[in-house]
C-alpha cells in the first residue's frame, strides 16, 4: 500500500499544469473584483485596473467625455502633484499607461516586485483622490480638440478613415468617434465631465488584476487596505452586449486636387468579441493582412510586383468591430487592378477552402502571438480582465487555444460568406483629380 501511495505521489509530479495562466479571484465587500495571477519566475509585478465603463457609458449628448480621462487620470491627487505618478514609476524603471475605449478603460503600471505597495497606493490615489479642476478639464478638452482638429484638417487619411468607420457602424454607439463629436467637444460642460469620474471610481465597475511576482497571502490584506474604502456613487455600467450592425453596401469616390498618394479604403463589418465568429474572423485577418503571412501582400507585391502599400486597422471593441484595409499607390490604375483582385480573392474565399498548410500556418501564428502576449504581465492582466468582463470565465488561455486549434477550413469558408460579402462592405476611393 505504501508503495502504491509513493507511485501516486510520483504520478502527481508529472501531471502537467492544466491552466495556461494560473489565476484565482475574490471580491471585496464594496464590489471590486480582484484577479490574481502570480508567477514567481518574474521579477516584476503589474497592477492593472480595468474599468467596465468607457465612452459607450457616457450620456449621449456628451459622448466622448470619458476619453478626456485618458490624460486627466495622471493629474494631481490629494497627495501627488500632476504626473508625479508617472515620474515615480519611470524613476524605478517601470512602465505605465492608460487607455479609454468604448466598452472599457484600462490603466496599468509595471514595477519591480519590491515596489508593489507603491503601485497599489498610486492606483488607490487615482481612484479616490483625483483633483479635477475646471481649468485642467478645459485645458485637456482644448488639447484633444486641437489635436483632432489638426488631424482632420491636415490628413485626408484620417478623414477618410473616420468616414468609413461611421458608415460601417450605422446607428450604433460606435458611430461616434472615441473623442466624441468634434463640433460639440468644446461645449461639454465641465461639471458633467467631473461627474463621469464617479463611473471610474465605482467599485462595481472595477476589476483589479495583479500579475507577476507577489505573495498571494499578503496581497489580499493589502488590496483590502488600499481599495476597501471605495464607495459606489453611480449606477454600475451595463454588461457588454453584441451590437447588431445594419447591413448595406456603400461605395464612394472622393476626388481631391492635391493628395500625396491615391488610396482605397475597404471597410468590413466584423464580429463582436462576444461572438464565437470573432476567433475565426481574426484568423481571416491574419491570412489576408498580417505582415508575416499576408495573402494580399503575396499577391500584389510578390506575384504581381505592383507598387502598392497595404495597411489595416482592426477596431478591437467588445460590442462590434470594423476592419479597415487601406491600399495606396501613386498610380491610380494600380488601385483599379487591386480592387478587382481583392473582389476575386473574397469570392474565392467564400467558395474554396484554405490549403492545410496555409491553415496550419495561420493557426500556429495566432497561437504564437497569444503565447507571446502571456510573457508580459500587463498583457496577461488585460486578457484576464477583459475575458472576465465578457464571460465571467477565468480560464481564457485554455479556451482560446482550444478554439484556435479546432478551426478548420470549412469554418473559414462560412465566415468568409458571412463577412466578406458585398452587403457588408463600405468602399471609399480617394483619388487625385
Amino acid at each position, binding site marked *: 500500500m505504501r*508503495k502504491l501511495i509513493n507511485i501516486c505521489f510520483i504520478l502527481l509530479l*508529472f501531471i502537467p499544469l492544466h491552466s495556461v495562466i494560473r489565476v484565482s479571484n475574490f471580491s471585496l465587500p464594496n464590489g471590486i473584483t480582484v484577479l490574481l495571477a502570480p508567477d514567481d519566475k518574474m*521579477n516584476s509585478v503589474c497592477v492593472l485596473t480595468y474599468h467596465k465603463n468607457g465612452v459607450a457609458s457616457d450620456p449621449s449628448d456628451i459622448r466622448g467625455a470619458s476619453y478626456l480621462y485618458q490624460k486627466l487620470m495622471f493629474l494631481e491627487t490629494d497627495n501627488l502633484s500632476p504626473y508625479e505618478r508617472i515620474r515615480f514609476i519611470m524613476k524605478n*524603471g*517601470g512602465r505605465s499607461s492608460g487607455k479609454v475605449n468604448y466598452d472599457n478603460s484600462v490603466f496599468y503600471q509595471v*514595477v519591480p516586485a519590491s515596489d508593489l505597495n507603491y503601485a497599489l497606493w498610486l492606483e488607490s490615489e487615482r481612484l479616490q483622490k483625483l483633483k479635477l479642476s475646471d481649468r485642467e478639464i478645459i485645458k485637456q478638452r482644448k488639447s484633444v480638440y486641437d489635436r483632432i482638429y489638426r488631424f482632420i484638417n491636415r490628413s485626408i487619411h484620417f478623414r477618410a478613415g473616420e468616414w468609413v468607420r461611421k458608415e460601417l457602424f450605422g446607428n450604433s454607439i460606435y458611430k461616434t468617434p472615441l473623442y466624441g463629436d468634434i463640433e460639440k467637444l468644446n461645449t461639454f460642460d465641465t461639471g458633467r465631465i467631473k461627474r463621469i469620474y464617479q463611473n471610474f471610481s465605482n467599485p462595481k465597475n472595477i476589476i483589479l488584476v495583479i500579475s507577476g511576482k507577489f505573495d498571494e497571502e499578503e496581497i489580499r490584506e493589502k488590496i483590502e487596505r488600499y481599495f476597501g474604502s471605495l464607495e459606489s456613487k453611480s449606477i454600475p455600467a451595463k454588461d457588454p452586449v453584441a451590437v447588431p450592425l445594419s447591413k448595406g453596401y456603400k461605395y464612394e469616390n472622393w476626388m481631391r486636387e492635391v493628395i500625396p498618394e491615391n488610396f482605397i479604403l475597404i471597410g468590413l463589418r466584423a464580429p463582436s468579441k462576444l461572438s464565437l465568429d470573432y476567433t475565426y474572423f481574426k484568423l481571416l485577418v491574419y491570412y489576408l493582412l498580417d505582415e*508575416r503571412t499576408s495573402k494580399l501582400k503575396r499577391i500584389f507585391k*510578390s506575384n504581381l510586383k505592383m507598387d502598392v502599400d497595404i495597411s489595416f486597422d482592426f477596431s478591437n471593441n467588445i460590442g462590434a468591430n470594423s476592419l479597415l484595409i487601406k491600399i495606396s499607390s501613386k498610380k491610380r490604375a494600380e488601385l483599379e487592378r487591386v480592387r478587382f483582385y481583392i473582389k476575386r480573392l473574397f469570392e474565392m474565399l467564400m467558395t474554396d477552402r484554405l490549403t492545410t498548410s496555409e491553415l496550419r500556418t495561420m493557426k500556429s501564428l495566432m497561437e504564437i502571438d497569444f503565447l507571446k502576449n502571456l510573457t*508580459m504581465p500587463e498583457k496577461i492582466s488585460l486578457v484576464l480582465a477583459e475575458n472576465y468582463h465578457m464571460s465571467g470565465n477565468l480560464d481564457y488561455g485554455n479556451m482560446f487555444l482550444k478554439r484556435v486549434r479546432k478551426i478548420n477550413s470549412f469554418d473559414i469558408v462560412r465566415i468568409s460568406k458571412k463577412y466578406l460579402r458585398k452587403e457588408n462592405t463600405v468602399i471609399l476611393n480617394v483619388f487625385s483629380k
Partner: protein
Amino acid sequence: MYFQNSLRPRSIIILIFILAIIFPANIPGQALEQTTSKGLRTNLIKDPSLMFIHAEIVIYYSEISDPAVPYLTLMNIFDAQINNPQSGLLNILFKMGNDVEIDYKLDHLIIKINFLPADVNQFVNFLKSLYNYRGFSLKKFNYSIKNFWDLFTKKNEWKRIIAAQIAFNRLFNQDHPEQFLLPGKKLGRLNLSHIRSFHKKNYTLPNSYLTVQGDINPYVLFGLIEKAFRNFKNLKASYSQFRYDHYKSDRKVIIVDDGSNGNPIIYWIDPLPPSDNIDHHHNRIINNILFGYPLGRISRSASSSGIKNFNISWVIHHHRNISVVCKKIRVGYRDIEKFIMIADNAISKLGVGRISRKEYLDSYNYVFQKERIDSDNYEMKAGEKIARSFSGKKVKESKTGQKNPLKELSYEDFSRILSDPSGSYNVNRNKKKGIIIIFGNPSLVKKYLRNIKPEIIKIR
C-alpha cells in the same frame, strides 16, 4: 501477490522514466551550453512556462569588404518579394508560422524566430537550409540590385542602420571614409558571385551562436542539430573586430540626405566599453543621467529652455570588443542646434559640478530596476546571452558571488570613469565627442544651424 511483485524498485524506476518522457512538463528547467562537433556554439534552455520556443541565431561576419553585400545576401535569402515562387527555406519558415525578425548589424546579423514545440524538426531543417543555402540565382540577384533601396527602406529601422554605418565609418576608418557606407552608384559593380562567396565565407557554423529557450528538451535538440550538420566540413571561426581602444572620438555632425521631407531624426552615437567590462555599466549610468527622458539633465534643460515636442530614446548595441549607445532624438528643425548645444553644455558640466551621490543613486536605481523588469522578457534574456557571446567567455561568477555586474559598481569607481580621458563622457578635455547624424531635409536643417558646420551625405 502478483501486484506486489510488479512493484519492485526496478519497475518503479522504469515507470518513472516512461512517465518522464510522456509528461515532461513539470520537470525543472535545464540548460545546455555546448559546442557541436562542427563548431556551432549553442545555448539551449528548457523553460516549459514559455509554451512556445524562441530562438536567436547570430552570425558574425569575418570580413566586410563592401557593406551592400551582407544586405544583398540577406535580401536574396529572406525577402518574399524576391523569392517568388517561395524558396525551400521560406517554405519551411512559413510552415512554422513565419514569425521571423532579422536584426541587421554592421558586423553581424541576428535572426529571431518564434515557433511552436511541434515544429522543432522544421527549425532544424531551417538551420540546415540556411547554412547550406543553394537558392541564389541571377534573376533574383538582378531584381535585388534593381530594387535595392525600395527593399532596404522597407525595414522600419533602416535609418538606424545607415546611422550606425556612418558612425562606425567615422569612429574607425577616417582614412578610408567610404569603407562602411552603403553605396548608391557602386551597386552596379557587384555580381552574383559576391553574395555567393560572402555566404560561403560567413554563414558558417563556427562563426555562429545559437540560443534557444522554451518548451524544449535541450539534449534532444542538441542531438538533432548535431545530426543535421554531421556532413558539414570542419571550419575555423574568423571574426571581424572593432576594438573600443582603437576608435577616433572627434565630434562629427552629418546630415543624411535621403530625399525625404519628413520631420528630422537625430541619431547621437557614442562608443562604450564592451559589455563584459565593468566601465560599460558606469557609462550606462552616466548616459541615463544625461540623456534619460524625461528626467535626465538634458531633457530638463531642453524643457526649461522652451524646446517643445522633443523626445529621446536610446538603445545599446553590442559588437565584438565594443558597444555603442545610440540615442534617437526627435526635435523640430528650428531646435536642432539649440538641443545639441544644451546637450554639450550638460556633458561639459559633468566635470565642473560632478554628480552628487543622490543623482548617481537615482540613475543607478533606474538602470538596475529597469534591467530587472526587462529580464522578464524572453527576448531580453536571449539578448543578454548574445551580448555575452561576443566576448566568447562563459558567464563567470564574480568575486562576491553575484552574477549581475551592476551590483559591483561603486560611486568612487564612477567618479574615476568621469575623469577617464578616453571615455565618451570624459570631462577633462574640452573636446566634443560623439557622432551626430541628422536625417531630414538638408536645406531646412542647414537653415537653422549657425555655429555647427555639418557635412552632407547623399545616400541615394
